[in-house]
């Protein structure tokens, strides 16, 4: 073991299991993160001791659950520096982004309008806008990559004009792993009066987010990529915007009154939370936030940076390795091995217990821009250590030998 030790590896029993006879080397945190054992136990306790239904209850048990649910909302609000009324619980980042498209988008994007997107957007922040644009006759304008394979700010500048109604942008790309120039792009967008939707799915596990300072209009993320349970996500929106927007889904818990067939809506955030919410999911997300706060983002950032500083030079030194994107990596690195298809490589890695992702990473426009069908992606988080980097490097070496010998 080198100097980079895992933060709290022992909290994750999953990482002690084996895969194909090897101890698991989990390098797919950008897809989803394991949940700390203690959070699972707390959720179990909640189900066993307090679980009931939220809202609309006049009984004590229901109130306990409602308070726990709203307490989770407050934790999220504090975590991203928002007001609790600005925090909408959804089933995940994809649902959050669709909500913006279905509610704000349908009301505000019209024929001839333009939407600016990065070519590196995840399908979840690409397709909703593409489909909306097709439906209303608006136009997508793509921020391309410069020769560092990072977003091209100069080209981006030329995309904004008085027709631009929206900027949809990932804070951190799930393929390139680099932080996009969000501040600059938001300011370009706001200068022409456009609204900014930031997809924070890959950023929020890695850095302290302050939506007010960022001045984004919407911010979306998922719980399962930040040590929380599955099926829960968040949409932050500026209150003034949320208040003007119509609800996107309809059902229990989101109306104020229904009279002569006319419905009026509850205040935000309830207006956007039709139906029984994922109560325990939200509470679990709250626990994940407690956990991250306890470790502290200073430690998280430093840890991941040290891992990258260790790994990247060694990876780059391998002449058969092509790394995509030359920016600083937030724990995520995508690459290809010369002459070896990423699927074949991943199958070999898997035999070593090294679990990476191979494919297009739900970023086909970026793959097309990079001129590749797919890539290998290794993504690291607080429980990974230098030994995991070494195992990846060794798996790469063996894979290269296997295919070079064989061919």
């Amino acid at each position, binding site marked *: 073991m080198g100097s980079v030790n895992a933060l709290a590896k022992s909290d994750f029993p999953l990482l002690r299991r084996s895969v*194909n*006879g*090897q101890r698991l080397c989990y390098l797919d945190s950008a897809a989803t993160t394991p949940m700390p054992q203690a959070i699972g136990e707390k959720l179990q306790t909640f189900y066993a001791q307090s679980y009931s239904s939220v809202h609309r209850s006049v009984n004590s048990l229901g109130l306990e659950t409602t308070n726990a649910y709203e307490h989770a909302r407050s934790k999220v609000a504090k975590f991203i520096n928002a007001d609790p009324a600005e925090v909408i619980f959804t089933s995940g980042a994809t649902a959050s982004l669709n909500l913006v498209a279905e509610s704000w988008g349908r009301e505000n994007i019209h024929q001839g309008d333009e939407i600016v997107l990065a070519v590196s957007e995840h399908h979840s922040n690409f397709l909703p806008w593409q489909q909306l644009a097709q439906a209303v006759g608006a136009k997508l304008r793509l921020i391309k990559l410069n020769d560092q394979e990072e977003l091209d700010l100069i080209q981006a500048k030329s995309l904004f004009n008085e027709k631009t109604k929206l900027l949809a942008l990932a804070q951190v790309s799930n393929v390139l792993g680099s932080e996009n120039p969000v501040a600059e792009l938001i300011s370009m967008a706001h200068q022409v009066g456009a609204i900014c939707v930031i997809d924070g799915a890959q950023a929020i596990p890695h850095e302290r987010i302050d939506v007010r300072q960022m001045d984004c209009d919407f911010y979306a993320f998922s719980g399962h990529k930040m040590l929380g349970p599955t099926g829960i996500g968040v949409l932050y929106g500026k209150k003034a915007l949320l208040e003007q927007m119509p609800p996107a889904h309809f059902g229990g818990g989101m109306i104020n009154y229904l009279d002569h067939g006319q419905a009026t809506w509850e205040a935000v955030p309830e207006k956007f939370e039709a139906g029984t919410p994922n109560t325990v999911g939200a509470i679990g997300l709250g626990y994940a936030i407690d956990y991250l706060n306890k470790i502290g983002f200073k430690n998280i950032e430093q840890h991941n940076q040290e891992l990258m500083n260790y790994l990247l030079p060694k990876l780059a030194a391998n002449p058969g390795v092509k790394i995509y994107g030359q920016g600083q990596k937030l724990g995520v690195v995508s690459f290809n091995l010369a002459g070896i*298809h*990423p*699927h*074949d490589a991943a*199958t*070999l890695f*898997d*035999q*070593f*217990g090294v679990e990476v992702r*191979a*494919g*297009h990473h739900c970023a*086909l426009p970026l*793959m097309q821009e990079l001129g590749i*069908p*797919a890539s290998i992606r290794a993504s690291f988080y607080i429980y990974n250590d230098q030994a995991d980097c070494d195992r990846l490097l060794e798996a790469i070496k*063996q894979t290269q030998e*296997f*295919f070079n010998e*064989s*061919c």
Partner: protein
Amino acid sequence: MSLADMRSLYQAVVLDHAAHPRHKGELSDYNAASTVHNPSCGDTIKLFLQIDQDKITAASFTGSGCTISQASASLLTEAVIGKTTAQCLAMAKAFSNLATGQEADQKSIALLGDSAIMTTVMQFPARIKCATISWWALDEAIIKMKGHPND
């Protein structure tokens, strides 16, 4: 790791077909074709067939993909030339069955010839699709041209 397992997936003939695919490129004359994507990786296989009097007289493919999908498509083209469309449909079904660990009738297996080697992919569930997509394309191309066998 079991490199032996890997050798059973990546046998010499497989690597050879992947590195030197047979019948790669668009046919100048064809009357049946189909494109199939593997949504999990973005791989694409486009298959071209020339069918005369219900027999495959020429076959080729284009598209990019992993060793498994390229080798499987290459082996497929070799296997289908000279077969009837009915035989091809039976082969596609037999291949897909074997690759997913199910049974297939001996006659169809015999028709597969060398291409049956790809069904060892069965041991690597995550890669089954890679091996089968060219066979789906075959099925689709024939059905598109001739209609469903039961029609």
